């Protein structure tokens, strides 16, 4: 990015690459021409190296930023909870209270079983996703440039928005999926859970017809079940990836950057909050569906 004469294609490719830490196999030829003697753990320089690293490669920038933002959220809310003052609270106290009460109201609307895990889960999901998405509003080149200056590597790849990485969004949605299955089995029993998958939506009194329709029911309900985490993850990923990409394309414009960036950033604030809200509401709705008996 600091090099001159970079084409716009190279700029975009550079910005779409995560800081991937992985193990390159022995005998791999890197871009500079040197061949690796042993398998080495190193940062990837281009997409081909990322592919050569295989499954066990870590997107260090995504991991670092998501953990950091989670810690920020926990620390701030913990401080407010520790110092609650009855009477006239300060500005930030008020804000935290407003968020918690808002989410509590939303959960109460949908969730009718008593489960003390759900509202804190919804709060965590919402605030964490909002914090991760808000990183997209920082101008595209600033944080990567700072990272390159600090690390001394002018080719360093650094993506600061964790939700543009499908690994994080799938991590969130697969955790919610695990909770859905856990609570389904806990509330309905293993037999009830399997019955729900195989006896709906086609239900008959005649037992032969019922057994005949089990594969169809299982297919339909299975697709329904698997679509939940997949759509949760990809919805958030797609929205944020497209938003970040448009920021990059606007950054290539030259003089007309400022008004375009401003307009798109304002629209993107809506997307940031909306996608976090939709993620949270769907988590609550799926978990409430897992709790209900027939």
């Amino acid at each position, binding site marked *: 990015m600091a090099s001159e004469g970079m084409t716009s294609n190279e700029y975009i490719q550079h910005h779409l690459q995560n800081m991937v830490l992985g193990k390159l196999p022995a005998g791999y030829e890197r871009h500079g021409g040197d061949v690796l003697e042993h398998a080495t753990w190193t940062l990837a320089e281009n997409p081909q190296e990322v592919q050569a690293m295989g499954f066990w490669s870590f997107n260090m920038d995504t991991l670092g930023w998501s953990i950091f933002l989670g810690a920020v959220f926990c620390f701030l809310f913990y401080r407010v909870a520790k110092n609650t003052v009855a009477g006239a609270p300060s500005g930030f106290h008020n804000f935290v209270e407003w968020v918690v009460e808002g989410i509590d109201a939303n959960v109460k609307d949908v969730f009718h079983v008593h489960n003390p895990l759900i509202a804190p889960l919804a709060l965590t999901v919402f605030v964490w996703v909002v914090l991760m998405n808000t990183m997209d509003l920082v101008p595209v080149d600033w944080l990567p440039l700072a990272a390159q200056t600090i690390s001394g590597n002018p080719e360093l790849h650094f993506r600061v928005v964790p939700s543009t990485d499908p690994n994080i969004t799938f991590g969130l949605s697969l955790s919610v999926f695990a909770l859905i299955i856990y609570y389904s089995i806990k509330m309905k029993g293993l037999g009830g859970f399997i019955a729900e998958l195989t006896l709906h939506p086609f239900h008959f009194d005649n037992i032969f017809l019922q057994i005949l329709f089990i594969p169809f029911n299982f297919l339909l309900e299975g697709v329904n079940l698997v679509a939940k985490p997949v759509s949760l993850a*990809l*919805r958030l990923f797609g929205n944020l990836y497209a938003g970040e990409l448009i920021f990059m394309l606007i950054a290539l414009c030259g003089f007309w950057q400022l008004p375009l960036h401003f307009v798109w950033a304002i629209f993107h604030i809506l997307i940031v909050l909306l996608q976090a809200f939709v993620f949270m509401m769907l988590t609550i709705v799926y978990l409430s569906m897992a709790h209900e008996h027939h």
Partner: protein
Amino acid sequence: METILAFTSLGVLIVLGMGAFGTAIGFGVLGGKFLEGSARQPELAPMLQVKMFLVAGLVDAVTMIGIGIGMWFTLANPFLNYLK
């Protein structure tokens, strides 16, 4: 290689175009129903607005997934890996 690139860009075109088409119609119907509902009962408008945004997020979902996949195909085309 040119064939792969050409067909990829046509494919991305179709994905983006049909996504935009579906989303536009979906949002139009959604917004229209919201306006109708809040005209009938203005006191319900805030509650309806919250629910409208919720459904808007859902309507947008598959389109955004399509945009994500389209951009991925355009910029880091996985089909080019088959050339080796």
